[in-house]
């Protein structure tokens, strides 16, 4: 009996110590979480020599998320602490707001998405005057002399898409285009459109039937594709400029029983898009290397901050993938 009592005393002692330890851990965790949540921030975060402000629109287009991936991947290399500020795509004035903050608060550099029509050259001049490195990223470089713009090659992307469609349908190609909503001005001046048109022009009889603009998004893509098909029943090929629009258009084709009857050429690469490619709903996708854009932008910022001259316009490459492409 005496032995059992001693053993139980030890057992309860261990439970007591264990409960106290767990309790202490919980209290410390709570305190740490509360302290980190407050104004002080995580003061143990590593110090960096450069402060890079990245201003991008809020969008579920993988083009932007991949840019951010590229910047973050390069941040460690260029030793920069990256501050990301997102603004609603419909409120570009908020981008200006953050641009102003960046200039006045003393950040070392700003990487900013240049919307079509944005005066990149003027913004570069203001930034230079404020002593802040400015790097513009975007899909299509605006006209004029630009100190630093990192973008894709929309003309070639449009041409590649057009070639895929005409390669399948030849002169029978009747194409509907779904372009991003931020495409401004005359369609004939848009590089994507011009690329598709150049490819179609090589086949007599093939033509671009209609062009719509849509916010990058699955529902927006569905709506745009449905509108195109209902308004133009003769359309037998659709070209989408964003991954989300492509997914929306693919869903419409599946719903309408038009999969593989209408040639759908999309943009970029997501797991769902990959599945559509494997099923043949999407014939091909023009994958812009937007991650590369991010990497190039970060490197350009570091170089310019180190005193090197601006690189000018850099257009990163793209690839065309189909259902049979290796992943």
């Amino acid at each position: 009996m005496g032995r059992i009592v001693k053993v139980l005393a030890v057992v309860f002692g261990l439970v007591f110590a264990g409960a106290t330890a767990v309790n202490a851990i919980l209290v410390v965790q709570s305190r740490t979480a509360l302290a980190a949540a407050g104004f002080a921030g995580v003061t143990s975060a590593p110090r960096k020599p450069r402060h890079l402000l990245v201003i991008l629109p809020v969008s579920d287009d993988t083009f932007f998320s991949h840019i951010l991936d590229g910047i973050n991947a390069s941040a460690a290399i260029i030793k920069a602490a990256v501050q990301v500020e997102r603004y609603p795509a419909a409120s570009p004035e908020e981008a200006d707001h953050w641009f102003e903050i960046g200039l006045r608060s003393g950040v070392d550099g700003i990487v900013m998405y240049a919307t079509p029509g944005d005066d990149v050259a003027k913004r570069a001049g203001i930034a230079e005057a404020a002593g802040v490195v400015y790097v513009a990223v975007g899909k299509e470089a605006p006209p004029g002399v630009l100190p630093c713009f990192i973008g894709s090659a929309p003309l070639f992307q449009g041409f590649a898409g057009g070639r895929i469609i005409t390669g399948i349908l030849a002169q029978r190609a009747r194409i509907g285009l779904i372009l991003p909503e931020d495409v401004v001005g005359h369609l004939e001046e848009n590089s994507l459109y011009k690329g598709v048109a150049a490819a179609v022009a090589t086949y007599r009889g093939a033509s671009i039937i209609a062009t719509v603009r849509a916010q990058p998004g699955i529902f927006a893509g569905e709506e745009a594709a449905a509108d195109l098909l209902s308004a133009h029943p003769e359309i037998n090929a659709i070209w989408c400029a964003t991954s989300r629009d492509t997914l929306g258009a693919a869903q419409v084709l599946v719903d309408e029983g038009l999969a593989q009857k209408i040639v759908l050429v999309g943009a970029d690469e997501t797991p769902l898009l990959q599945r559509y490619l494997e099923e043949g709903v999407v014939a091909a996708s023009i994958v812009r290397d937007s991650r590369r854009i991010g990497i190039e932008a970060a490197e350009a910022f570091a170089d310019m901050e180190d005193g090197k001259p601006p690189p000018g316009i850099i257009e990163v490459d793209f690839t065309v993938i189909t259902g049979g492409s290796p992943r």
Partner: protein
Amino acid sequence: MKAPRSLRGKMVLVALAMLATIGAATLYTGIATAELARSLGLLFSRNQHLEDIKIGLAASSTDLTGYLSTRTPDDLSSFFSNSDSLAESAKVLNRAIREDEGLLLQRELAGLIDRYLESARAAAEAKGSRSVEVYTSRFEDSEKTAALARSIIERVESRNLAASIDAYSGLNSRIKAVIATNAALVVAAVLMAFMIFLSYTWAITGPLSSLAAAARAIEGGDYESEVPHEGATEEIATMANAFERMRRSVRAAFDEQRAKAEIERRLIEEELRLVDMDRKLKDAELLALQAQINPHFLFNTLAAGMQLALSEGADRSADFMDKLAAFIRYALRSPSRLVGIADEIECVELYVWLLRLRFGERFSFSIEVDDGTLGIDVPALILQPLVENSVGHGLRDVETGGIVRISARLEGGEALLEVADNGAGMEEAVAERLIREAMEAETSGGEGGIGLHNVIRRLSLATGGRAKVEMESAVGRGTLVRIRLPAGREDS
């Protein structure tokens, strides 16, 4: 630390252990709760810095606007005062570049406030120097920067609020776990304290129980088991030792009583034996008295026969009757009397004379006596029965050449009386058995009246057991009976 040995010390230690355990649990739970509350307060108190900056910024901006509008010294003074306060408040902001979004926002806010203060002070100074273009442009810049700073503050507040809500939500879930672990540790502490109490109680009362068991055992008559006192406190050990001493004393008294009883029992037995011997002696004397009735008649008759034989000229018959009467006279006197060895030899010579008359030259007898032995007292009739045994048993089947040797001599402080024959003899084991039986026999049953056992018994009574009778014999080589007597004269 040396554990206390006293009962009081142990009880105090138990109480202290219980109090310490439960007290530690209570203290800890209190500290943990206070710490959580303090952390919660910290969450909101830190955001107060942001509020101070916001207020300072608004006040500075208002004062600057007022000063630029009215140009009153009070506004200017207030502006510089608030600007200094704002600068002081902004000192808590992070200015280092760190990989943390919140800290980077603070850095931006710090930069904007610096820019604001620089522009605002420049505007105020330009106003003083009446440089309209400069102060308006710097004022516009300060106002724009202030607006951007306020937007950053809102952003930080919004972010902090979201983070605080998340943290508070996490805190709520942790508080449940903290309460559960608090309850667990309090229960565990109480149980542990109870077990410590039980353990010590066991240790304290264990020796008492053993002592009680020992008391019950002694009460039941068991004085052999020792009283245990291992692990006992000083007080209980003292009691146990005292109890043990008492047990040993009682047991010693009992042993003494038993020893006395045993001695008394032996004394009683000895008395009974003496009474029995006395009775037997009286019986023997009575028998001897009865036997003396006829000897007087026999003596008278033999005397008459001797007178008749002399008157008729039969000298040899008269001599026979005379020696027979002398032998019988010697033999019929009290057998318990002591006589000298000379008397015993004389008796043996008479007996041998009579045997020769009976057996003629069939047996020869030799008697060798050391003169030094003649005066030694011995019980009467100890040699004649031995000679009788030699003739009656040893030489019974010997037709001729039988020899009986009787001797008495001194050797090593002892008188040795020996009767030896060259008769049939016996095995050594038989001889030993005869001696043993003779020594153990209670009554006379020997062949020929006074036998070997009678001799041994009387010798033992007469010498107090100091006389010894030995027998040496071998088949076909005869038998020797030896009596060892202490050479000094002894009273029976």
